[in-house]
């Protein structure tokens, strides 16, 4: 009788372990789905969903299906921290992708890093993320960033300004940390190329004084206005600027102004350029991604807050497959040593776990488009 009980217990344990092993791999996706950044957060989750669907269609990873558990950060650091804890401890996720803002991403990183859970940062650009990884490599062993860092972003913008033969530009953004970092980084990158700053203004997020900033930017003698705000306020500012100076060229860092749904009512009397990680037509993989996204969600991707999360999930899944394991150390080793194909191109990570972006050889380049009424036309880098 004892033998029967023992055999039954063994079979139950075996069945439990088999079913546990065959359970899905879970990715925790942290994005702002309510509050002022809800639009960007929604595209973020759509793209992550698309990447997971694609990965499952290709057989999943490690012989398991992949699922996502979504958490709404509301664009707040405290919520991002608590949601990270929930995803890790209650949902039991195997990896994290997020968050959106630099501040909330730092909160996620602080919470997830010491637990060894792989974290792929898809959008946040502050240099502090890679600085922390460089200073405390053991603590943030499994934290990697696919998006461009601020210095890389500034290099691309400056290269475009140089290609347009810009002498002086005006920089306008919102008064938050990463936007000021970008303004300063661009000033340095542009100075190296002989381009000067005519005006720099950061409107307050609480009371964005668009009118005086538009007056100052339009009257600064700049050849072009670099609009560093990726959020909804970029629309309001663009309108104010174009009312005063309809032909003034504007270069947006991307985000809201990359949304094709807005084109019919955008003021396009002057050139409007938008930077993106990838755009339909920039590479075959970018085209394939854009077409899949449009078919699945009925609108074209904006090339930034969706493309980069898509690539973050794609790179993570590829790393799982390459590592043959979902454990943090194994995934980190795979990411440190491998090359991973995403919609924007081939990702390689440096010592600070930053994907290589910029004009250097083998680096991802990103793209800049110009809006026309019938769609976006790629203008940089020149083919």
């Amino acid at each position: 009788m004892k033998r029967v009980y023992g055999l039954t217990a063994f079979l139950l344990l075996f069945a439990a372990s088999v079913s546990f092993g065959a359970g899905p791999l879970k990715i925790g996706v942290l994005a702002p789905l309510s509050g002022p950044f809800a639009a960007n957060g929604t595209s973020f989750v759509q793209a992550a969903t698309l990447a997971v669907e694609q990965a499952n269609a290709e057989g999943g990873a490690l012989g398991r299906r992949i699922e996502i558990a979504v958490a709404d950060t509301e664009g707040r650091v405290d919520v991002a921290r608590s949601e990270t804890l929930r995803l890790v401890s209650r949902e039991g996720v195997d990896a994290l992708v997020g968050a959106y803002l630099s501040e909330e991403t730092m909160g996620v990183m602080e919470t997830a890093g010491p637990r060894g859970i792989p974290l792929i940062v898809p959008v946040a650009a502050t240099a502090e993320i890679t600085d922390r990884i460089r200073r405390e490599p053991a603590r943030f062993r499994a934290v990697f960033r696919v998006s461009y860092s601020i210095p890389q972003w500034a290099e691309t913008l400056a290269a475009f300004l140089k290609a347009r033969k810009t002498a002086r530009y005006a920089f306008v953004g919102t008064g938050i940390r990463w936007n000021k970092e970008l303004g300063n980084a661009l000033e340095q990158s542009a100075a190296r190329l002989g381009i000067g700053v005519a005006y720099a203004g950061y409107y307050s997020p609480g009371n964005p004084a668009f009118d005086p900033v538009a007056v100052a930017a339009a009257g600064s003698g700049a050849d072009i206005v670099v609009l560093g705000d990726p959020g909804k306020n970029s629309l309001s500012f663009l309108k104010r600027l174009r009312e005063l100076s309809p032909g003034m060229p504007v270069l947006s860092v991307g985000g809201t102004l990359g949304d094709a749904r807005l084109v019919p009512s955008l003021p396009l009397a002057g050139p409007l350029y938008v930077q993106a990680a990838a755009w339909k037509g920039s590479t075959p993989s970018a085209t394939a991604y854009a077409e899949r996204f449009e078919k699945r969600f009925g609108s074209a991707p904006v090339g930034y807050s969706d493309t980069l999360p898509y690539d973050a999930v794609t790179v993570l899944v590829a790393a799982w497959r390459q590592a043959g394991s979902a454990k943090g150390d194994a995934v980190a080793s795979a990411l440190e040593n491998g090359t991973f194909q995403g919609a924007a191109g081939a990702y390689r990570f440096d010592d600070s776990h930053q994907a290589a972006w910029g004009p250097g050889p083998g680096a991802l380049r990103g793209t800049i488009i110009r809006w026309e009424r019938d769609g976006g036309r790629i203008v940089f880098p020149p083919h």
Partner: protein
Amino acid sequence: MPALPQLILDGVFTGAAFALMAGGLSLILGVVKVVNLSHGAFFTLGAYVAATLSRQGTEFHPVASILLGGGVAFALGTFLGKGFINPIRSHPFSVTVGTLAFSLLFEQVAQFAWGPHPQIIAVGRSFSGPLGTTVRMWGAAAFLACLALLAALRLLLSSRWGLPLKLIAEDEEIAESVGIDAEKVRYLTFGAASAMAAVAGALLAPAAAIVPTMGRGPLILSLIVVIVSGMENLPATFALAVGLGLLSNLGAYYLAPEWSYILLLATVCVLLALRPAGWKGLVIARDV
């Protein structure tokens, strides 16, 4: 383009936009005597109605937007006033929390109905003004509408039609003793004030990115105007709103854009310190 005249003109227009919102808010504070944090939601509702009527954002229909936006907001505001505000208005804290909850609920509903992505309406024409300025169409519309609405409100309060409002604001028991249905006046006032917020949202829609949370900023700014100016003096509400708009614009240009909000809030603190009876003044005076 000369900067100072443009800054002054834009400051006046920005202030008029604050005043447009503040007019309705002060009416609620004066007659219904509650702090209404749902006012921004009605502003957003007006903007969404304008966007819906604009055929993919390419055409702005101000008259239709005002009528439809104002009408829908009046109906919703009246319903909210009768069904929710009136029963709990003796508990001021509950009203404040309740209207805030309504506002957040509305943001979720708007996100569900129109999506989280911004909607915009084509900017419309701007034309040359005096001293080389550029006159923004939406700004001129907000300014004129604000003047018209505040003038109409003042006229109403000084006519016999406004007597119930003044009596209720002064003393509800006396008003009821002479046969005025105070509850009805209160919820109709709430509806009318909500319509004013929606009209402001509809008129300012071409200037903004229309998103579910767009009413938060105007709510705070109009609340500031009402707190400081009170309801007893409508021209003071207008003058204060315009003054704050000018201060915000000039501060942003001559100091730094980030300082404009700090300057605005610091000025409000000073004004309140000089006039601490601001809250007490939130009633409609007998002699308006």
